[in-house]
């Protein structure tokens, strides 16, 4: 089956007065219909920029190369007219901070209805009705009252529910959730993840979850891609990744998750060192300076993302951890 979103050899660079910074380096990935893919990586690993490029939301000084196809059509570098036919209806995005991603001076109902008026050509009264039904579906209590409230009158969790509802209004093929729970506290975070799971079952859209937290995406993702310094270093089924991570970076990340069972730790393990800066020119493996398994070869030759024998799990490492 053809993938919904197909990213091929995508690079994103930012030009600055004296140099160019590479945020994303030759990333390729596919998202199939109804699939949930999680992109995990630390700050600056380029995980958000991959999808900003796909949505045509890159900053003015950014340049993207490669190919992004949505439902078979190329959308990288497409004009705003073509993009606006897709964005907000078939391809939607949920942003990190629900506190700032709703327009402060428009009522919730107006903002929701506007999406339908804009994309589906609905009348305002139809759209308002649909907005009300959507608020019910995303479990917003008292939907009628919320419609006529302003964003600042809602809590963070409610606002994120509104954002999720807004992203689902036009029946999207693919929803990109960029760290949807980072700005929320832990209990609300769990509720929002539950809601995303429920919506995925109801609506059946494909979902991309961008996160820096393996624990958050674990329960929801079918497949997890781990990014480091602008590249995908490991790609595996969710259960597979947790059972036996092959890349030393993934293994180190998993190692940093504190466990409720098992011996009590004196200190939470951390990764020593810093990730490379985006302006660094890297010959070898970007993780080599922090890698316990690094050898001479890692510093001179960049490992490529290889197909494993079963075809599902891929890793970019010269010396992957053996299963």
């Amino acid at each position: 089956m053809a993938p919904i979103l197909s990213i091929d050899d995508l690079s994103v660079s930012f030009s600055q007065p004296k140099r160019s910074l590479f945020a994303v380096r030759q990333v390729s990935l596919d998202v199939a219909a109804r699939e949930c893919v999680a992109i995990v990586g630390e700050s600056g690993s380029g995980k958000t920029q991959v999808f900003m490029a796909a949505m045509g939301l890159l900053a003015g000084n950014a340049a993207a190369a490669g190919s992004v196809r949505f439902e078979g059509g190329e959308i990288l570098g497409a004009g705003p007219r073509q993009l606006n036919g897709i964005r907000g209806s078939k391809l939607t995005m949920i942003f990190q901070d629900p506190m700032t991603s709703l327009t402060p001076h428009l009522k919730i109902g107006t903002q929701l209805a506007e999406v339908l008026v804009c994309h589906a050509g609905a009348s305002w009264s139809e759209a308002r009705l649909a907005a009300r039904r959507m608020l019910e579906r995303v479990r917003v209590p008292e939907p009628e009252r919320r419609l006529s409230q302003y964003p600042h009158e809602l809590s963070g969790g409610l606002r994120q529910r509104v954002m999720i509802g807004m992203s689902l209004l036009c029946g999207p093929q693919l929803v990109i959730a960029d760290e949807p729970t980072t700005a929320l506290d832990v209990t609300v975070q769990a509720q929002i993840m539950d809601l995303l799971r429920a919506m995925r079952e109801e609506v059946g859209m494909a979902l991309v979850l961008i996160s820096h937290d393996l624990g958050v995406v674990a329960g929801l993702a079918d497949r997890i891609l781990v990014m480091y310094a602008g590249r995908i270093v490991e790609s595996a089924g969710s259960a597979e990744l947790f059972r036996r991570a092959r890349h030393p970076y993934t293994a180190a990340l998993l190692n940093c998750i504190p466990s409720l069972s098992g011996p009590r730790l004196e200190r939470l393990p951390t990764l020593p060192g810093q990730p490379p800066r985006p302006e660094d020119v890297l010959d070898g493996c970007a993780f080599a300076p922090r890698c316990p398994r690094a050898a001479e070869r890692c510093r001179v030759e960049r490992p490529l993302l290889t197909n494993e024998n079963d075809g599902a799990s891929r890793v970019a490492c010269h010396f992957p951890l053996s299963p």
Partner: protein
Amino acid sequence: MNSLVVDAARRLRSNPGAVCAMFVAAGMVALALLGPGFNPNGSETLDWLHVASQPALQSAHWFGTDRLGRDLFARTLEGTRVSLAVGVVASAVSLSVGISYGAVAGYVGGRTDHVMMRIIEILSGLPLIFFVIFLTVIFGRSESLLFLSIGAVGWLTMARIVRGQTLSIRRREFIEAAVASGAGTARIIVRHVIPNIIGPVIVYATLTVPQIIMFESFLSFLGLGIQEPHASLGTLIAEGAGEMEAAPWILLVPGGFLAVLLLALNIFGDGLRDALDVKER
């Protein structure tokens, strides 16, 4: 009900100075509009028996008469009405032109912004008085021309303010979210940019009205604005200034009106700024 407006109204009510100023300004506006109905003296009737008579409550002319025997109270009210009209119309012109110009320049950015701002700089480099004299010479004197020329110059600052405000919010997440949900540039400017910057703009507009009244008075004082037999506060003050030693009230009555009106509008504008300027709580 619009809760932002309700909030702002509540904060405005808790500011006694602003409430006072609002009532004074509203009272003067009402007086200027309705006052002539209660005053038996017309603003253009000459009373030869009382030429340059002193203000006295028991006489027919409460605020006295000018050197042609016209009732000063009626003239001052007419002057206030004309001055207010100039202020409001010119502010409306500068508001509408300034908002659309500034929002487009700020949101679209890049080269468009550069060109648009350079045009503003060129226009604001023109000496204003010279510009007005020039227009008067070409088109002759008329009140509508006065409105137009003041408005044509007043929008420059408004456009700069709107552009600045737009720049400060165009990189905010809700704009990005609007782009991500497929809204076009025009829709984003009208629905998401302008409503979010309207607070400071309204405040600036209320402070523009007195500024423009002042400017109109200044032009009329120079003889470039409103012409006899019509009166604005500026022409009345200019007339009074000539009689200052013999009949000071001819200067003091319209001068006092102007001072009180400007003070009230300024205090009200300040209060409005404080009331509206609470950011997103």
